Each structure stands twice: as C-alpha cells, then as structure tokens.
C-alpha cells in the first residue's frame, strides 16, 4: 500500500484576500480581486486590469510579522505570509522525528526588485543586497529560514504549472519515504516583466478575463502566494492533526508542441489528467468538480475543454475556472487553485466561473456560473498548464473518518 498524502494546512494571499478567511469571504460573495492597478500604480503603469494583492510593501512586512529590512522582494514577503499561515494552520511544530521539507515554486523569483534596481546593480553598489533576489531560490530560502525548515529545500519553475509541480514533487517525496512533512506552494509578484512580457505576446484581455466564454480575449494577470502542508499518515498520527483532505492523484505531461501555445486537441492536458486519474485509481465518473486551468485565452480554453470532453466523455464533471477571482497568479496558480479546490471539498460548494455569459461553440459543456452550496463534493481535479507545454493535474479527495 503506497503511503498516503494528507493535507493539514493552507495559507494564501492573493487579490481576493490576505489570508484564508478573507479568501473564503470573497468566494462566498463572488467578489473578484480584479481591478485597475492601484497599490503600485506609480510603478506598474500598464493600463490593463490585474488582480493585485491589496498591500503596500509596508503592509506586507506587517503581515509577515518581520521588521523592515532591505533585501526582501515582494515575492519573498508574500511567500512568507502564505507559508506561515499554512504552517500555523497545520499546528506545525518542529520535531527531530519529523523530516520536513520546503518545495517552493516561482517563475522569476524576486524580479520585482531586480528590474527596479538593475541599473544600480550594473553601475553602483547601492542596491547590492538585492542582487541575489534575482534568482528563484531566494524567496524559497527566506521562507525556509523563517520557518526553520532545513531537511530538504528546492525550487521548481515550470511556468504556470510551477506550484502544481511543487505539490506533485512534495507528494512523491513523502510517498518515497524521503520526507514526513512538506510545506509546498508558490509565490509570484506582478512586475513590469510579467505585464510587458504577456503584453508582447498579445494575450492580455483589456477586460477582466472570461474563461470558457465565446467572447474571451486573453488572460488577466494576478499575483499572490499559496502554500499547503502535506503530511504522511505517520506524521498526522503522531500529532493528531486535522485532516483537510487527501492528495490522491497527480499527473505531469508535456505537450511537446509549441513554446507558448497549446496543441489544438489539448493532448498535454488530456495526458496529465489521465495520468492523475490512473494514479488515483478512480473512474472518471467519480470526479465531482474540475477547477480548470481556464485562462481565458482563445487556445487554452478550447484545448482544455476538448481534453476534458475526451477524457470524461458523456459524464463531464462540474467545471469552473477561478481565475476571474484571483487573476492568473502564474507560478502560484497551481497551489492557489489547489486551496480553492480543497475549500470546495471542506465546505461542500462549487465555485462559479465569473464573467461567463456566452457558451463556446467548440464545447458541449458550459462552466458553473453561480456559487453552489450544499452539494456533494468528494473528489476534485485541479489543472495547471504552462508555457512550454508543462501540464500538471492534481486530484484531491475528501477524507471521511
């Protein structure tokens, strides 16, 4: 019997709330985090809607409960806030018997500070403390040092599926008996790099994103951090922990088609979902809800939709994309959406796909558009697909005692 992976703690900061409670409130009120750039409008001058974390740098230091000092990127601060919340939520304490790891994900690490001070880096010594925030490991190590995690540390970067792959890797390390407990997730701050880069690819919607809608016209970027605590059965037993749910399936596949576009038939999406289902040992019919990747780009939503139809046939589960709530938080999206999926299991609800009105002619199904309460939600699949065709699917299941 392979080792089981339990989830015991959640932490999240995004455009819809600075913690789990605020996030839940926004979800219950169908309140989106998308709007004009306001907290950093002097710096991020692009005129597109985004889902900003509603915090200044000062606010983030306060929420992270650390004294202001130079050398912290927005990426690291948000990561610290969410990881700390997850750690506390799981009532985690250090113990020499438990091997604990941190597996974090980010696409461009502390780019927010790096792009701001790059000319200083090159021409004077005034901002040297930020030079090392450039790489992806910086935020991971800041989180690990703060939580006192040392047994294992790594960082994953697979574009927009990064934190889904962090969960997958963490789960496998527990299954292999290499770790007892893993804090895992991702963090990504909005930067000029993201806004200008996605803009150059011409895939930013001028309006809030409309996944699975015939009028969809691209992505709405978001920022945030989300972390989960995964634990082995033994670890849960020794501490008599609350179990939020179980991670029972994961699948990773590569489209191997194009660097920035999905294949027309969504072969990568199909393969990652199929692998996750196969590993979980479940029939497709047992999945109650799919928290879709659903970015709102023309290509993704067709490819993902067709892949869902192919895998689930006549028995398509309820589907929604929660990106109209949080925006596309890129590397953090996999973990953020894992948390929203788990909230659906905990509270027996299905989250709506906001901004939907017109069905796509290519698909036979339409997404859930209203919040559904008191519906049986036992098994949820969460999809995360990234540039480079890096596709990952995760399956969470309710644990009944």
């Amino acid at each position, binding site marked *: 019997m392979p080792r089981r992976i339990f989830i015991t703690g959640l932490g999240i900061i995004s455009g819809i709330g600075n913690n789990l409670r605020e996030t839940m409130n926004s979800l219950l009120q169908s309140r989106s985090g998308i709007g004009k750039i306001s907290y950093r409008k002097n710096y991020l001058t692009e005129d597109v809607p985004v889902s900003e974390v509603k915090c200044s740098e000062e606010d983030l230091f306060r929420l992270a409960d650390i004294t202001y000092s130079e050398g912290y990127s927005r990426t690291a601060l948000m990561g610290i806030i969410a990881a700390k919340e997850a750690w506390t939520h799981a009532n985690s304490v250090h113990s020499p018997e438990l091997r604990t790891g941190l597996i974090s994900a980010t696409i461009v690490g502390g780019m927010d500070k790096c792009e*701001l001070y790059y000319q200083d880096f090159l021409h004077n010594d005034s901002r040297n403390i930020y030079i090392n925030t450039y790489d992806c490991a910086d935020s991971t190590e800041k989180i690990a040092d703060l939580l006192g995690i040392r047994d294992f540390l790594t960082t994953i970067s697979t574009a927009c599926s990064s934190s889904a792959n962090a969960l997958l890797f963490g789960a496998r390390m527990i299954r292999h008996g290499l770790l007892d407990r893993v804090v895992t997730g991702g963090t990504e701050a909005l930067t000029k790099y993201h806004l200008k880069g996605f803009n150059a690819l011409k895939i930013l919607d001028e309006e809030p994103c409309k996944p699975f809608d015939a009028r969809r016209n691209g992505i709405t970027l978001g920022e945030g951090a989300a972390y989960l605590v995964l634990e082995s059965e033994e670890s849960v037993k020794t501490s008599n922990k609350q179990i939020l749910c179980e991670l029972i399936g994961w699948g990773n596949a590569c489209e191997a088609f194009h660097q920035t576009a999905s294949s027309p038939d969504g072969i990568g999406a199909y393969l990652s979902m199929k692998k996750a289902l196969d590993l979980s040992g479940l029939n497709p019919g047992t999945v109650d809800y799919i928290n879709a990747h659903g970015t709102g780009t023309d290509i993704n939503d067709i490819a993902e939709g067709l892949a869902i139809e192919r895998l689930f046939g006549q028995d398509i589960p309820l589907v929604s994309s929660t990106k109209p709530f949080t925006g596309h938080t890129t590397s953090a999206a996999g973990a953020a959406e894992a948390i929203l999926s788990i909230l659906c299991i905990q509270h027996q609800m299905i989250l709506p796909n906001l901004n939907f009105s017109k069905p796509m002619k290519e698909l036979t199904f339409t997404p859930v558009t209203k919040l559904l309460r008191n519906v049986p939600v036992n098994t949820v699949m969460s999809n995360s697909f990234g*540039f480079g065709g*890096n596709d990952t699917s995760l399956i969470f299941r309710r644990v009944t005692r």
Partner: protein
Amino acid sequence: MTAYINGIGLISPQKTAEGKDFLTEIIEHNADYLKCLEPDYKKYLDPLLARRLSRLIRMGITSAKLCLDQAGISMPDAIITGTGLGSIEDTEKILGTIHLDKVLLNPTPFIQSTYNTISSQIAINLKCSGYNSTYVHRSFSFESGLLDALMQLEEKSAINVLVGGIDEMSMNHLSLIRRLGHWKMEPVNNLEILKSKTKGALPGEGSGYFILSSEKNEKSYARILSVKTIYKPDSTDEVEKEIRNIITSAGLTMQDVDIFLTGMNGDQDFDPIYYTLAEKLFTDKTLLYFKHLCGEYHTSTGFALWVAANILKRQVIPPVLIIKITPLTNIRNILIYNQYRNVHHSLILVAA
C-alpha cells in the same frame, strides 16, 4: 534507489562534447571565467532553429542530443533539467530596457528567459510528451533533478530519464556576482586555482545531460546509488554525519569509498571545509577535484558526475584531477561532495 548512467552529453570548457577522450588534452583558460567550447551546432540543430534559440538553449538541446545518441535512445520517458539561472542572457536583454516605459518588450527573450524553456525545447525537439520538470534552486538544482529522476525510476513510471544540469555565464552576471565578492578579483589561470590563496571562485559554465536508466547495458558507465542535499549545516560535523549516513544507507562502509571527488574551487574561505572532511573521513583515500576544469557554477556537479562516471567505466584517473592519490587496483565507489559558500552542500554516491 539505483540508476545506471547509460549515456552522457557534456558541453563544457574542456573538450568533452565529442564524448571520446577523457581529459587527455587539458584546456587552459586565462579569462575572467571558463567559457564552454561549443560544438558546431550545424551538426546537431536545424540552422534556422539554431539562429532563433539563445545560446543556453542551443547548448541544452545539443548536449541532450549528444547524450541520447550515445545512449542509443531516441525517446526518453522523462525530461528533467536543473538550472540555477536559466537563460540569463535573455533575462538580461529584458532587464536592460525594462525601466524605459516607452520601449516594447521583444517576445522572444521573454519566452526564452523562463527557466523551463530548456526542458520544454528538448521535449518539443524530440516530440516527447512524457514527464517534464525544471529545478531552479542554486547549487541544489542538478541534485534536485537527479533525485526526481531516481524517484521516476523507482516508481517505474520511466525506464530512461534524461536529466541535466545547465548554466551559462554572462558578462553582466559576472560583474554583478563579482560585486558581491564571490569571484576572484585577480586574474587566475584555471589550472592554478588551488595555489591562488585568495577569496572567491573562478566562475564557469556547462551543460551536462545524462540518461539514467533502471536497466544496465553494454553502454552503462556506472550507477548512482544516492543523492543528498544539505542546507546551511550547523557545522562540518553535520556534513560528516550525512556523509556517513549516505554511505551506510547504501549498504557500504567508509572503507568502500575509493575516491572523494570534491568541489574545491580555490576559495580560501571555503576550501578548508573539504580538507577537514577529507582528512577526517578519507585519510588514506584518493582525493580529487574538478572545478579548475569547468569553473564554479550552480550545476557544476553535472561535470563532476561526468568525471566520476568516466573514472568508474575506464578505471583511469586523469592526473589533472589529483590532489592526493592512493594506488588502486579496482575503483568501485566515488563520493562526489560539493558545497557552495557553506550554504548548499550536496553528496552524490556513484558506484561501478
């Protein structure tokens, strides 16, 4: 866990790309860093594609191809890359103009600057839809990839995993890290770094891909028995404990380790750690180093793994690697130990 190394493709500052010689001719470098000797890409890549791709990605795809050719495999079951910095050349192109609000960003460097581009370009090139991932944690990047590969084999979800470590040096990155005092300030000949007695390392670069397989064949170089990373150890005692642990967990004794292959880089502040552990644990063993041949970079243990695999397969120790030698009739086990500035320590245990 055990994984056979069945093919290697290494582009490095030495003549390694051909895959034939094993350090018979040593290349001296007198520049600021050890630059890769790049092969003629026309032999490996469609010229149109080669022009479009940035240097790091060209190196990555080509070393992956060299590796697959050597292993005689056309389609791996999984592709995993470790890279500390990704395509830093592309990132720097963006950073150079990003502060200018009027300047539009060129999509090509944006796409190539994301770290997963190497693994995914290799996949696109091979049409490989298997497992695909990228690890980006400084001097743990390649080791994390190896660990993932070992788990893939154990899970039986793959028979042949293509796993690599790749990093490039750029002029800007060179000067930035020099500002932090991590590189040597004075010019040094690469073959004399251990004599330098100064602070800092001599930087380098490289791209090494490996086929790790659950199946042994006539091409097998060696076996990887175990991989371990240690973050910010309290003292060298903790590293010592982990070294003893990795060896006993593999069912070996300290006596079974024939060679201690270290990441000494000539930094007077950090090399003493290697000497302390070598004297304490491997007093009468052969002590080797490799970073004078490839330089310091986040995934330099890829070069070290190539060295260890070749020593075990050929049963030869090129003199250029030797710090101290104990005559050996049969080389069975090599422990690769690397540390970067006493923060990231890693162990890779390799057996014949």
